[in-house]
């Protein structure tokens, strides 16, 4: 987001001699590490991979993922992308499964705050870069925001073939027959497509993409969005992207359409929302509650139950994922947001 090439020389480790380097490393905490933890060459490499990924939407770009001080599988790809993009002027938000306060989100936020000296926020609309594990926020993202999604499995085709080499060939030839057969067999066996999260999604009519394990609820938000989506995998060392205003279409059949998760007759127990992704909680007394998964938006809705998802934009009626849980099950659009009636 900001120029990081002209880094603060004070914080870099001296490369003049071994003694000088060791001397620089003395001190407490993360003093002695480079700005934003990674060295400048690595950050440049990551940014190049991101640029390449933007140029070829949905295509997986290999990069030399570095070992990070977080365990692999815990957001190391995401944090490498975030730290490469962040500058000192930026505001950073981290969410894990919809929550800013999950311990892993707190840990990632702390690493960025300690090493990149960025401001942090829990408010989606305030953030320049948002790193997320498996959710796209409920509030509409804008063209000056970047959403960095943590990716555990980079290839939608992994479901049908474990070999990365074979799948790279399939992508090169746009040969997705095996995935279509898989979906068809799903329908034959179960009556409908049995894919929950990580829904296989076609990007710009060319590359089949694993959108990371976001719920199907969030998949329509990828289509024709104002913001940039960066998908970064640390363990599997791949980066891919969905640039703003790209066509993104989940695979489905004419007679078995793409469906988002349904929460029939449920609303958030805290804010009453019926147009957000809910998760269910079994309580100690044996009852089941549903609650908003996007914790920061839920707090806003508790203050103002009618707050629209595009409240911070000048225009309204912006398309952003499913409208209401009672929309007609085909991944309805935000334009329908308020017309969902009772269905019984």
């Amino acid at each position, binding site marked *: 987001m900001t120029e990081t090439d002209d880094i603060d020389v004070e914080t870099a*480790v001296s490369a003049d001699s071994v003694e000088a380097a060791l001397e620089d490393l003395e001190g407490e905490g993360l003093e002695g590490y*480079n700005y934003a*933890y*990674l060295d400048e060459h690595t950050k440049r490499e990551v940014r190049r991979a991101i640029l390449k990924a933007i140029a070829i939407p949905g295509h997986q770009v290999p990069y*030399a993922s*570095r*070992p990070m*001080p977080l*365990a*692999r*599988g*815990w957001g190391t790809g995401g944090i490498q992308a975030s730290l490469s993009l962040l500058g000192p002027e930026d505001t950073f938000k981290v969410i894990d*499964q919809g*929550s800013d*306060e*999950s*311990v892993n989100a*707190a*840990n990632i936020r*702390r690493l960025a705050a300690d090493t990149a000296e960025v401001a942090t926020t829990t408010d989606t609309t305030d953030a320049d870069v948002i790193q997320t594990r498996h*959710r796209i926020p409920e509030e509409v993202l804008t063209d000056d925001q970047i959403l960095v999604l943590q990716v*555990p499995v980079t290839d939608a085709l992994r479901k049908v073939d*474990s*070999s*990365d*080499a074979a799948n*790279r060939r399939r992508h090169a030839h746009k040969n997705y027959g095996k995935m279509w057969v898989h979906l068809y067999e799903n329908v034959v066996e*179960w*009556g*409908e497509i*049995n894919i*929950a*999260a*990580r829904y296989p999604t076609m990007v710009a009519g060319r590359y089949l993409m694993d959108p990371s*394990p*976001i*719920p199907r609820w969030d998949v329509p938000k990828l289509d024709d969005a104002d913001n940039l989506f960066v998908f970064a995998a640390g*363990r599997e*060392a*791949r980066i891919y992207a969905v640039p703003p205003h790209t066509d993104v279409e989940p695979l489905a059949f*004419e*007679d*078995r*359409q793409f469906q988002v*998760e349904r929460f029939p007759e449920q609303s958030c127990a*805290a804010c009453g929302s019926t147009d957000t*992704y*809910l*998760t*269910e*909680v079994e*309580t100690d007394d044996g009852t089941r*509650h549903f*609650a908003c*998964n996007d*914790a920061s938006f839920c707090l806003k809705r508790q203050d103002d139950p009618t707050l629209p998802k595009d409240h911070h934009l000048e225009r309204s009626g912006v398309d952003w994922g499913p409208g209401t849980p009672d929309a*007609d*099950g*085909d991944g309805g659009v935000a334009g329908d947001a308020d017309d969902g009636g009772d*269905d019984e």
Partner: protein
Amino acid sequence: MGYVAVKAGEELIQRAEDLFEKQRLADEDAPITVDQLEGQLERLTAQAMSEAGLYAPRLAALAVKQAQGDTVEAAFLLRAYRSTLERWDESVPVEPSAMFATRRVSPAFKDVPGGQILGPTKDYTQRLLDFELEDEDESGDPTADWDLEDAEPTTLTNVVDVLREEGLVSEPDEPDVDAPTDTTREPVTFPVERDAVLQELARGETGAVTALGYSALRGYGQVHPTLAEVRVGKLPLTIEHPYTGDEVTVADVAVSESEAVVPVYAKRDDPQFAFGYGLTFGRNERKAISMTILDASIQLESEDEPAENAEFVLDVVDGMDSFGFIEHLKLPHYVTFQSILDRIRAIRERKVAGTTDDEAEPAADDGTDPAECESSESEPSDRETIEASDDD
């Protein structure tokens, strides 16, 4: 707000860290020193260095201490530290015969040039618990009163080289010494060069390398090697002097090395042994030998057996990757689980609808307008049965 399953902040993280440290420090005993770890638990520090791909005995001892003896965690600490360091230079390739060996056995021959050197080993010791170690107070050198003659260290002829001179072992592909692959700086993509395979195996998790190597021996593969030799010793670390351009030896690196020939003949007209090579930092013969088997197996370029499939082996052999991803399952997964619940409920509804209402199935399969089918037929009936299944 009691509805978010896992909520915690930085204070909780700090407290968890404190509790972890307490496990190490709460006893009356003096903390174990890094010197003690480096000196007395060398196998542990060697394993951490080997899996980290960073030769730094002192830092490895520190990492083992911090990780409370978890070698994969220690290797992880070293790797994370390594990734912040500049790479200053590349060393000059070194011949195996340059090793100063403290141990060398050649199972292939009864005797070999330079002789068999048993060296320090527990291989032939009976594995009985030594209860005297419990109350050991004095450290003493059990070899103190050995009567030894001074002798110049000799370098040892490489056994595979002897076989190669006779033309019995196929030659490895000529490596690109000008631009060796470094898998920590370049992503691994397949097909993969042998130097990248060797680097990834050398950094592999000891247990994983051993298990996969064993799989080939156990029958899931064709490689049952004869070890030409196994050596433990020190290799000189030689660099080109930045000013004079002369080659200078700046340090020693303790390594375990293993070479094997495999009676698999690559060419029909000129039958030669295939071969395998293994090298690890520090003393870890088990891993070096297993790596040798895997190198030989992967060179067969078959996909018939797990150990022969480079992609499979390299995908699963890295401790940092497997450790991280296995343990990430502890992270909250309620978003994806909600999505999974939605699918299984929908499918159960469909099954229930199919058995109780015969009209539901044909309605879904005939050629009616899909939108109408979704919205007017299956949806309402799905919702009714959601409640039915929830009541179970």
